[in-house]
């Protein structure tokens, strides 16, 4: 371990003596302290959080990711080009330890910078929150600078339901000329609509289980996060709904008529004591508007409850960002093993940007083409290059999925709790699996390659 420690220390020394760490610290502090104070917001807690938390954390993540790429590529490629690596590999140290030492050194520098920037951003947030009106300050403390867990209704098995319904349809009428996959696709949409739409005058009923900690949460203030879409617009943009939470027959149940806008998130605070004996919450929404409302299964309704402090949640968010940095550092060091510094930097930045375009790749995979896709007919024009780009998109989509699934910034800016499971998922999928594969590749290449500047 002593050799690894020395290589790591050397990498840290390099970052400090080249003024890299100092320069980046200054840029980060400027970005999270000075710049947010210059950005105007409309004085609401939500906008304030959006600007400060989302902006600061996104900027920290982007700056650290790009600087990590640069530092990691330089740490290996420059040593190879400058001949310093020759001196190291002539000593009794395995080459994989050199790789690891460099990676650890980079992580020490970047995690140090992350903690510095994260702390500065939090301090700036607290400082600037004092300028908000008192009511918004209270909302900020209650809704955003908190850590709230959320529970949703478990998703129904749409595939099974669709299969059953398709069988029923075939029995009801002759559908011999309709292929099974087309029938299944159509029936699946129908099943989904049954779950998501609420016609005028109808009710939608959810039962959300608050889990094993329900007893603890029983007497804490909980709230509903609601978002719906409307089949057509209303005159004033609002839709009349009646909410009954805690059981229709319960005299102590929460009942309220609310006029809500479509397409935005609403938070409905609930009094404590609405859970039933099993720790479940009974929620009923009656559509009294003239339009059909659609509550998507993914984000239609969630029950929020306090769980831990914002600071701890913030720390978990920064830990998830650190997991990303670990992957980026591994990519950079590995690219530096077999490419010159400029080429390695360009390659890794390209990969990084490709990783950020995960949704685009997912769309290409879903539609099966890079050409235009008609959502009405489900048909595409197709492209000559689909044979190459669609499989590539599959690979990129697969690789970027774990990275995208563990984004902490959105959660922090809305006060949602980042569960430990998500932190572990980031550590496991992003750092250990993807980062580990990259590390093994880098170590193998370094062990096998020749290390000499000249022939």
């Amino acid at each position, binding site marked *: 371990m002593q050799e690894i420690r020395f290589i790591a220390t050397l990498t840290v020394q390099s970052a400090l003596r080249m003024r890299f760490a100092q320069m980046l610290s200054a840029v980060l502090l400027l970005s999270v302290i000075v710049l947010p104070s210059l950005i105007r917001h409309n004085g609401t807690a939500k906008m304030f959080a959006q600007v400060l938390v989302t902006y600061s954390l996104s900027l920290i993540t982007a700056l650290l990711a790009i600087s990590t790429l640069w530092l990691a590529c330089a740490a290996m490629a420059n040593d190879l080009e400058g001949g*310093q690596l020759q*001196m190291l590999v*002539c000593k009794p140290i395995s080459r994989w330890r050199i790789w690891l030492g460099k990676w650890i050194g980079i992580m020490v520098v970047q995690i140090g910078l992350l903690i510095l920037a994260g702390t500065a951003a939090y301090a700036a947030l607290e400082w600037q929150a004092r300028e908000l009106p008192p009511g918004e300050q209270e909302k900020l403390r209650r809704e955003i600078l908190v850590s709230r867990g959320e529970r949703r209704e478990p998703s129904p098995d749409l595939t099974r339901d669709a299969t059953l319904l398709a069988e029923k349809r075939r029995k009801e009428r002759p559908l011999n000329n309709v292929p099974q996959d087309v029938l299944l696709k159509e029936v699946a949409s129908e099943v989904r609509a049954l779950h998501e739409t609420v016609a005028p005058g109808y009710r939608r009923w959810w039962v959300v289980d608050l889990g094993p900690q329900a007893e603890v949460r029983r007497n804490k203030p909980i709230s509903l996060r609601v978002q719906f879409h409307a089949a057509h617009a209303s005159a004033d943009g609002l839709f009349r709904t009646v909410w009954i939470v805690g059981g229709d027959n319960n005299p102590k149940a929460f009942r309220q008529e609310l006029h809500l806008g479509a397409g935005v998130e609403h938070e409905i605070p609930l009094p404590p004591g609405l859970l039933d004996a099993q720790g479940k919450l009974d929620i009923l929404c009656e559509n009294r508007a003239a339009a059909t409302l659609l509550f998507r299964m993914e984000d239609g309704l969630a029950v929020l409850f306090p769980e831990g402090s914002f600071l701890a949640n913030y720390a978990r968010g920064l830990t998830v960002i650190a997991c990303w940095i670990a992957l980026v550092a591994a990519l950079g060091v590995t690219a530096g093993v077999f490419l010159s510094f400029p080429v390695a930097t360009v390659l890794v930045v390209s990969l990084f940007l490709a990783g950020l375009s995960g949704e685009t790749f997912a769309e290409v995979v879903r539609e099966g083409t890079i050409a235009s896709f008609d959502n009405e007919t489900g048909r595409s024009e197709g492209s000559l290059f689909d044979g190459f780009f669609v499989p590539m998109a599959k690979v990129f989509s697969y690789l970027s999925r774990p990275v995208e699934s563990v984004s902490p910034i959105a959660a922090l800016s809305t006060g949602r709790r980042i569960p430990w499971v998500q932190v572990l998922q980031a550590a496991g999928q992003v750092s250990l699996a993807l980062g580990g594969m990259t590390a093994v590749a880098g170590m193998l290449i370094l062990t096998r390659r*020749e290390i000499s500047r000249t022939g």
Partner: protein
Amino acid sequence: MNLPHRSPSHSENPGGSVVVIRGLTRVFKDFWGRPRARAVDGVDFDVRQGEVFGLLGPNGSGKSTTIKILLGLLHATSGHVEVFGHHPSHVPTKARIGYLPEESYLYRFLNSEETLDLFGGIFRLSKAERQRRTEQLLEMVGLKSVQRRSVGEFSKGMQRRIGLAQALINDPDLVILDEPTAGLDPVGCREVKDLILALARRGKTVILSSHLLADVEDVCDRVVVYYGGKVQALGSMKELLATPDSLRVTTPALSRETVASMISLLSKEVPAENIRLETPSRTLESLFLDIVEKARHAGGQTSGATSGNQVAAFIRGDSLSPETGPRILDRLAQAPLPKPAPASTTPETPREPLHDAGDAARLDRLTAAPSISPPQPTPSTMEPAPDPRLREAEGKLSSLVKPGPPRTHS
């Protein structure tokens, strides 16, 4: 964990070969895999334990490629290479090797002390041991006074010195020096050669690659001469340099009569035109060393490397204590120089016996090597000789002294 100190007696192969090379070939290829250059071509040689082995050859002859293959930096295209009985990529074996590359590949942002501490750390030396060795090595290479300056600020020669120090931090059994005197001043060159002799005295094996023939000639026991990637000559210095059909006699200044008698005597066996008589001049090296030594004694300050430093105690082994250990420059002044001036007319530092038989034998051999100094005029005067042979000898002497300054005949 500290690496065990290995004296030669602990070696797995006492008296045997430290390096074995058989049929070594290395072909450099281009991007498309087509052969571009045959840098090393079917090379065979062994390096025995305790010898100073020279790799000689012009630039691009394959010396550095061979060294890099020995160190595992390059792979052999074909052939067999063993270092201490292992493949060059064997990591634990590297604990016994010290390497000075042909250029400074050190971290420019580290200072001398940090550089040695880094490499000592990679050799798993304890902190106390690293500090001890760092101090001694910096003293040895004359960088003690500039140990806090970063290596990037150093001159080429100073970078060479710190490079040499890092190559010795692990007290290696095999020291590989690629062009060790490149960029060094004459004092530094002499100190490096003295260091190589000190290493050899302790039974260390030294591989020295150079195209500076004087470096190799001064210190090597055996050499291999490369040209075009192939071995052109291989053998001991004695075998390669001996000229058995000639003899050289060196004496202190003699009287004119004695010289004339000697030439007369020699003329009986050898034609007069085959006899060369000359007064060697002092070499520029000895003059330079003298000036630096005087300046040092006069307390002159320098912001660069200092000279006249003693070989690090851990490199010398325990045979010499720091108190009794000779200072290199002092020894140089006392020891015979490679091109001695036996009948010099300028004052010379008196010579004293060498420190050990090994040095004596090596330096004796060096003094027997043919002089490359041009003949210098002698200030001695000559008497007319009655004997015809003496007259003939006098004629020869006169021809030798013709360019000299005018003198009054007594």
